[in-house]
Each structure stands twice: as C-alpha cells, then as structure tokens.
C-alpha cells in the first residue's frame, strides 16, 4: 500500500494524505492554539464612548445568560475552527474509492516541429501546446506520474516519470521550437518503450504496477498517418492546436477534389519548398538557382522572391540584394522561379519572401555555391588502361583526384596506412582482393571484398544481363547494358541489406552492400582477363557513366554549382580532406560546436536544428559552408489536421482523424481536464467560509 493511504471502513472515501506524522502533529496544534488564543485576552480595539454605564449593565445581564449565548459571541472562533477543520480534512486527501492508489500515468508528447512555430494561434502553437500541457498538470492528482516527450523528426524524453509538477512544468516550459519535420511514429515508439515505467532507469519514480498510461499528444497534426504501429496499451488522446477547420462542405457530384481537401484547404502561409543551384551547362560562368514557392492561402497572392548574396569570405556580413522575381501564385498552388547569377566564387545565397504569414521560417531558403571538393580516389589495378583512362577524363578529373597504384604498392606505406585512416573517399580494386576492408567506400571489379559473407562463390560463364536497377543513383542514365556481353563472372550471394544493381540470367553481376557507414560496390566480373577483354562494356557510354556515378555518389565530391541542402534536425556528415582531428561548426545563431573526427574519418554534426547557413572551420584555413532548409510540404501546410470539421456526417468523420495503426484517433482542440482530487472542493469550502467570515465581520451581520 502506498504510504499515507488509508481507508476507513464504511466510508466511500479513502484518504491519501501528503503529510507525515510530524506535520500532522503540528497541524493538530493549530485548533488548540486558536482556542487558546481566544481564551487569552482578545486583542480588542479600544473605542471611546461617552459612558460605559449602559454597556456594563448590558454585560451584567448577558453574563447571567446561558453558555450558549456566550458561545454565540464567539462566532468568529467557530468559523476559524471550521476553516481549520476543513483544511485538515483537505490535507487528509480524501478520494473517492475507485481512483486507484497508484495514480494515473500520463505521457505528455509535445510536438515542437517547425509548423508548431506558426503564429496563427497566439502566441505560437507550441506556446499554446505548453499551456495546454500545464493545464493537464494542474489537473493531475498528487500521486499521478507524468513523463514529457518533445518530438519533431525525432523524439526526446524531456522529463522522466515524476509526480513533481514543478519540475514537469519547468521541463515543459524548456521545450524549444525546432525547425525539424514531424514524425509521430518516433514519439509513439519512445512513448511505447517507456510506457511501462518499471523499465525506467535513473531519475524519476519507478512505479511498481503496470498501469495503462494516457498518452496526450499536443500537435497540429502535421504528420503522416502512422501505419503499422500498434498502440498496445497506450491510450492516445490528440490535442490539436491550430485554427479550427472550416465547416464541412458536402461534396458536389462531379467535383474531383474531395470535400476533405476542401475542408482542410487553406492556411495562412507562403512557403519556399525547394531551392537548387546548378552550374549553367551552356554558360559555365553562370550559376542557376531554381526554386519553388507554394501558396497555401485560399486566395491568389502576388509576391516577390528576393535573392540576397553574402560573400563567403565575410560570414555574417550584411547580405546584398542581387535579384528579385515577382510571383503571382493562385490559391493553393505552386509557382517556380529561377535566377541566373554569375559565379564569382564561394557565396551564400538566400531567397526571401517578404509576405507576412503565420510561419516565418519557410519564407527563407538558403544555398551555398562555389566551394567544390574533389573526391579522393585510389585505384588499385594491375594496369587496366581503359579503367584508368576513363577516370582521367576532364569531367572525372573535375570531381576526383585519382591515384593509381598496383597490388604491391597497396601493401606498403603510405597507402596501407592511408587506407586504414580513411584518407580516401573511394578505393577502386580492380581484380584485387585486399586483406581487410579500407576505411572508405569501395568499388570492386572482378574481385570480392574480404569477409566471410563472400566466402562462397562459384564462377559462371557467359551470363546474360537481363535487368538493372535504373532507380539507383549509381545506375543513373545507364540504358544500354542489354548490349553488354560478359564472358566470365562470379556468382555470389549478396550479403543482407545489399541492393542488386545488375542481374543476369545466372548471377547477380553487380550489387552495392553497406558496411559500417560505407558502401561496397561489387561488380562480379573483371574488366580484363589477362590481356584480353572479359567484357565489351568499355565500348558503351554506360561504362564511363557508371564510373562517374560512382565518383559522384561514393566520392563525397561537391559540385561548385551547389551543395545539397540538409533538412533541419538531421545529422549532417561532413568530409574534409585534411587530416585534422577537430572541426568547429558555427550555427547561424552564432553557437559554436566542436566536432571530433569519427572512426570513419568524417565529422558528424548534430546541431543543425535551425534553418540557415552553417560554417564549418578546421585547421588553418579550412572552411566549408552548408545550408539547412526546411523544404517540407507537410510542415509548411499549416491547415490543422485531426479535427473533424463541424457538420461532418458521422460516417465520414474517420477520414479527418489522425490514424495511428488502424485506429483513427479523433483530435480535440482542448484536453478534457481530468480532475479527481476531492480535497479541492474542501479547500473551496474553506475559502467560502473565509469569505463568509469576512462578510459577517464587515457587513455587521449579527446572528
């Protein structure tokens, strides 16, 4: 039994007092003290009167009266004793039987994704969510436990199970908005994992019994339905923050758009959903900037996309307006824009849309141009001229520094050491099987990577290429493999997780297998068989394309035309050539993070929570800028999801609900307060008595 909980037989209450024995002893002294104070002389207010003659006579008469009269004089005493009694009763903590001794478990999940920063609910959706969560805390009983999870693209446990409301309130208030996307699945997984508090280690209370936790999700519904997730014993309740959806409009026959789309309709936002930079193919001294803007409003919008440029040499300097494009965007649709700017070296570009809307962060998009990095490629070959020549074309040379060695050199320093230290981005083994995996991506021709998974293999003759995976980045633009002939190949079972790239009638001819953060691309047939060709692949355009794709994908090369954009909240892998072990990254807010090189030879930055341009610095003058952009249609779409519009026919309500697993969960715009503590009413009664006493005292009500 919980401490301080006891039950008096015959009463429909049990008592759960938060006070200990000492506190009760002190409390018991209070009424005694009040009575004692009354028996001691009251501190009476002196009033001068013409004569006490008549009062004395009255008093003498009264003294003769009954004890009851005497007691009636001390009405205030009785009122005070009544208050003390009520307060003591309240502190006994009476509860209706039925509310369990252990208390309810709450899992409070608060969405702090980018869309929660929208100001369409004053002050922001997140602030409202925090306020609603605090209300839930207010309604919690003293022995209820709650944990707090903040979730965006990943979920984070902000507070473990505790009944300390002050701490919970602090932790909830400390939840900061992020610019990340939303994944309810993450939150649900964390909640489900921690739903049973006996698993909990460390800070917080460990509850003994298994209770069904109530999961309160404070969100705006900006996430995909969570498929294939079993809620298990979680009881979810979604509190949807954001403006209520417009009333249900019955679908008109012949109207393509469903009533749901109409109802969910518009929200007050204009968002840049994409921004890409590319070197102009025709004029190589120009950089092209493409972007896409969506108008989520229910009305046409005329606005302007402004392009600002900031010199990479002066990070933090004032941006200069370079160009602007006027945009007329019809309601609920997109328009693209394009800027052509001269390539003047490394620069940071920013596109702004100046319209005032509910969500500010998607009105800006960032891009970084002009900081190319070449892939470091090591080729181990017995002297395959065709392979080496293909890697030395001007297009390939732009992207990669290629070092060619033979099988003898690779066993000696410095190459043996460099392979272990991750010096190279990509190592191409041509008919050479190394003894151990290098700390880099690899491409094998006619050889298998080391390791037991490749132990079983058998040779095959004249395989006929039947199919290849054109969707894979390595196989981009490759169309003519059907004409390629192969004489000898090795049939090997690709390891688990591998993606088959080229399939023949008898064996897989190429696959890509993951290995500790690296990729091994294995082409199971050699290019040359001694001095003879083993394949005619050299004769087709797909061979240089395949190599180029490999350089591009596995060489960590960066095009001067522009760096890929990163999404906020996700880890960013940075590769730098120099062998420095440390790097610092300056966030747009000015925060500086120190990074250490991982064993894979790269730097992983986890602090890109906000959009903007980040600057990495290392060594003497190593510098790299990268952009973090929201570019998330779901986050930018502020239309509230999860609330059933007014007037929706009951059979259609399911489509508006948030689906978790197979069960639609209806959202509510306000959480139902769950107040079960009965002492609250006693405290109110005490207050009422105080007010009554005040009234009696001040309004001269003589009873």
């Amino acid at each position, binding site marked *: 039994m919980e401490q301080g909980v006891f039950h008096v037989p015959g009463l429909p209450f049990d008592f759960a007092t938060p006070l200990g024995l000492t506190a009760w002893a002190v409390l018991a002294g209070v009424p005694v003290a009040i009575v004692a104070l009354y028996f001691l002389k009251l501190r009476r*207010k002196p009033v001068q009167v*013409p004569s006490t003659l008549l009062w004395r006579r009255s008093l003498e008469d009264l003294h003769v009266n009954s004890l009851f009269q005497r007691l009636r004089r001390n009405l205030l005493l009785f009122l005070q004793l009544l208050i003390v009694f009520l307060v003591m009763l309240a502190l006994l903590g009476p509860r209706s039987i039925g509310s369990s001794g252990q208390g309810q478990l709450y899992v409070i999940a608060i969405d702090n994704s980018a869309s929660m920063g929208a100001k369409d609910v004053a002050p922001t959706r997140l602030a409202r969510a925090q306020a609603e969560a605090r209300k839930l805390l207010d309604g919690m009983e003293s022995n209820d436990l709650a944990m707090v999870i903040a979730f965006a693209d990943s979920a984070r446990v902000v507070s473990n199970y505790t009944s300390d409301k002050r701490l919970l309130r602090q932790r909830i208030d400390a939840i900061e908005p992020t610019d990340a996307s939303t994944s309810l699945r993450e939150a649900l997984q964390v909640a489900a994992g921690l739903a049973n508090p006996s698993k909990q280690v460390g800070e917080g209370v460990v509850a003994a019994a298994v209770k069904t936790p109530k999961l309160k999700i404070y969100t705006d519904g900006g996430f995909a339905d969570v498929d294939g997730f079993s809620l298990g014993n979680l009881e979810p309740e979604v509190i949807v923050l954001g403006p209520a959806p417009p009333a249900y409009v019955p679908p008109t026959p012949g109207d393509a758009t469903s009533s749901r789309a109409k109802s969910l309709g518009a929200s007050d936002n204009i968002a840049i959903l994409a921004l890409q930079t590319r070197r102009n193919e025709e004029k190589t001294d120009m950089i092209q900037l493409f972007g896409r803007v969506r108008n989520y409003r229910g009305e046409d919008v005329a606005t302007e996309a402004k392009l600002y440029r900031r010199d990479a040499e002066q990070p933090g300097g004032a941006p200069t307006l370079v160009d602007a494009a006027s945009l007329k965007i019809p309601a609920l649709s997109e328009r693209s824009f394009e800027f052509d700017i001269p390539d003047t070296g490394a620069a940071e570009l920013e596109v702004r849309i100046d319209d005032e809307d509910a969500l500010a962060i998607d009105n800006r998009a960032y891009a970084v141009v002009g900081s190319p990095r070449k892939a470091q490629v090591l080729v181990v070959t017995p002297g395959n001229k065709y392979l080496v020549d293909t890697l030395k074309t001007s297009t390939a040379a732009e992207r990669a520094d290629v070092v060619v060695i033979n099988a003898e050199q690779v066993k000696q320093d410095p190459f043996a050491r460099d392979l272990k230290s991750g010096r190279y981005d990509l190592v191409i083994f041509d008919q050479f099987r190394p003894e151990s995996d290098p700390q880099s991506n690899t491409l094998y021709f006619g050889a298998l990577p080391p390791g037991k998974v490749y132990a079983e293999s058998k040779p095959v003759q004249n395989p006929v290429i039947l199919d290849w995976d054109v969707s894979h980045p390595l196989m981009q633009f490759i169309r003519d493999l059907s004409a390629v002939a192969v004489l000898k190949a090795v049939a090997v079972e690709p390891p688990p997780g591998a993606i088959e790239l080229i399939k023949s009638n008898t064996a897989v001819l190429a696959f890509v297998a993951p290995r500790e953060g690296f990729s091994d691309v294995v082409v199971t047939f050699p290019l040359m068989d001694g001095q003879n060709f083993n394949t005619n692949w050299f004769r087709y355009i797909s061979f240089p394309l395949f190599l180029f794709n490999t350089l591009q994908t596995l060489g960590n090369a960066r095009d001067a035309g522009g760096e890929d954009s990163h999404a906020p909240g996700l880890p960013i892998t940075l590769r730098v050539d120099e062998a420095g072990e440390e790097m610092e990254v300056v966030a747009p807010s000015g925060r500086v993070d120190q990074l250490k090189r991982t064993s894979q030879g790269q730097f992983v930055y986890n602090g890109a929570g906000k959009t903007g341009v980040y600057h990495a610095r290392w060594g003497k003058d190593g510098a790299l800028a990268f952009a973090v952009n929201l570019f998330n249609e779901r986050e930018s779409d502020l239309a509230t999801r999860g609330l059933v519009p007014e007037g929706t026919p009951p059979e259609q309500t399911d489509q508006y609900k948030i689906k978790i697993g197979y069960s639609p969960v209806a959202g509510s715009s306000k959480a139902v307060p769950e107040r079960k503590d009965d002492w609250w009413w006693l405290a109110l009664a005490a207050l009422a008595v105080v007010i009554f006493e005040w009234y009696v005292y001040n309004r001269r009500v003589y009873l």
Partner: protein
Amino acid sequence: MPATKSPPLLDPEFLHKLEQLELVSRKIFVGRMKGERKSKRRGSSVEFADHRNYSVGDDLRHIDWNVYGRLDKLFLKLFLEEEDLHVYTLLDTSLSMDFGEPTKLHYGKQIAAALAFIGLVNHDRVVLNAFGATLDGGLPSVRGRSQMYRIVQYLDQIEATGESNLAASAKAFAIKHTGKGVVVVISDFLDKHGYEEALRYLLARNLDIYVIHVLSREEVEPELAGDLRLVDCEDADEAEITISAPLLKRYKQTLNAFVGGLKDWCTKRGIAYIFTTNDNPFDKLVLNYLRERGLVK
C-alpha cells in the same frame, strides 16, 4: 468626538421665532419685581383671585366691603400677584456630553440659549449654570433682551471637562440660589452615582423642574462591531465587549429601562421630563416639543 468648530448657537430667523414665545411656569412664584407673570401669591394686583375669611392681623385695605355690606361678614379680597420669574438653566458639561454630531453639549447649549432668550424676551430673570463634577460660577441673573449677548458669550466659552456629578452640583445649586422659579436641567444623566439625589435637592427647593434628557444617536443605536474595549471618556473605565445581536438587543433594553426609569421617577414627582436625541432639530424641540410639554407657551 469633540466638535472643533461649533456652529452658531442661534440664527436670526430662529431668534425671531423665539420672540413669539413666552415662558410659562405652571407654578406662580413671588418675585422681587412686578412682572408680567401671575404669582401664586395673592397680592396687590388688579386680577382678582379669591376671597377668604378675615382673620386678625390682615390688612384692612383688602377687606371686600361690598361683601360685608351684603353678608355682614368680613372677607378679604385676594388678588393674583404678577411678578418676574427666575429661569434657571443647568447645563451638563461633563466629558460625556462631548459626543455625537453635533455634540450633546452643543445641542444642550442651543437649548439653553433658546430658553434663555425666551426668558429674556419675557422679562424673566435668567440664570445659567454649567456643571460637571461641580457647579461653576455661572452667569449671574440677567434680565432684558439686551443681555442676550452675555448669554451667548457665556455659553460659547463653556467646554466639556471632567466627570459628571449631578448630586454635588445640584446641592451646590440649591444652596446658592434661593430664588424660586423654573429650573431646566439639560444633561445625558449618564452619571454612575445616579440622578435621584440630585433631583431631590431641586425638588426640595420647590422649584418647577424640567428635565431635558439629551442622548446622542450613537448611544441610542450604537454602530459598533467586532471585539472592542470600550473606554469611558470620563473615568477611563473599560468594558470589554464582543458585539453580537443579543448584546445589542440587551443594550437597547437597558437603555430603554434607563430612560423609562428616569421618566417614571420624574413624572411621579411632578417633574416634566423631555427626552431628545442630538439629531432632533433643536429649534423644533424648542418651538414644538417644549411648548407641548408646557415649558414654553
């Protein structure tokens, strides 16, 4: 609650009203001067009162010879003698009178001034005395309308002081003033020694006594609340009370008993008793109330 600035005792309009009045005495006294009043003493005036049998030593000039001629018996003609009246006013100036709004003292001064004025207008001898613990020297008897300023002057300088001792003051008064007439006692009678002895001294002088009992509104309907320590302003006696409905009820009963007791006591002894509170407009009191009670005609 002493009044800092007293309003004027009498305003001209009120004085004019007073002129219409005349003091009346229900008893007729012998005075030193022949005044406008009838005296109980049969004497040498023009108004016939009665006959009586002649006895040896009577003034032969008063024998009614016409009756002797008809009845052959000697009768004396008796006349009502007109003489001037002493109007004594005893004003309580103890500290307890310094309460109320206006203060009971101020109210009493107004009554005293009004009565004095009426007396002066009617050529009565007006004597004013203030008393607290003892009787003060008072205003020596004045007469004639022109002396009104002295009355006002005297009343203006009176301030509330000390305890009240009705008995001692009445005794001193009785010894000092030998003249007969009307005595008006203005007091709240909140004297812990009682009022009976005092009034007996006055009764013994065979004076025509009027008691004007003045209480403040606060005394009649106390506006007190809470736990209080009442301090007597005169003797600093303290009474601790907790205001409650029964206590207030009891107080009112006590007050009624006190007022009723005084009234009964007076009525039984031929003393005219008038109760008033300080919020009763004093001109109304003088013009209507006192007239009804026979003090003013």
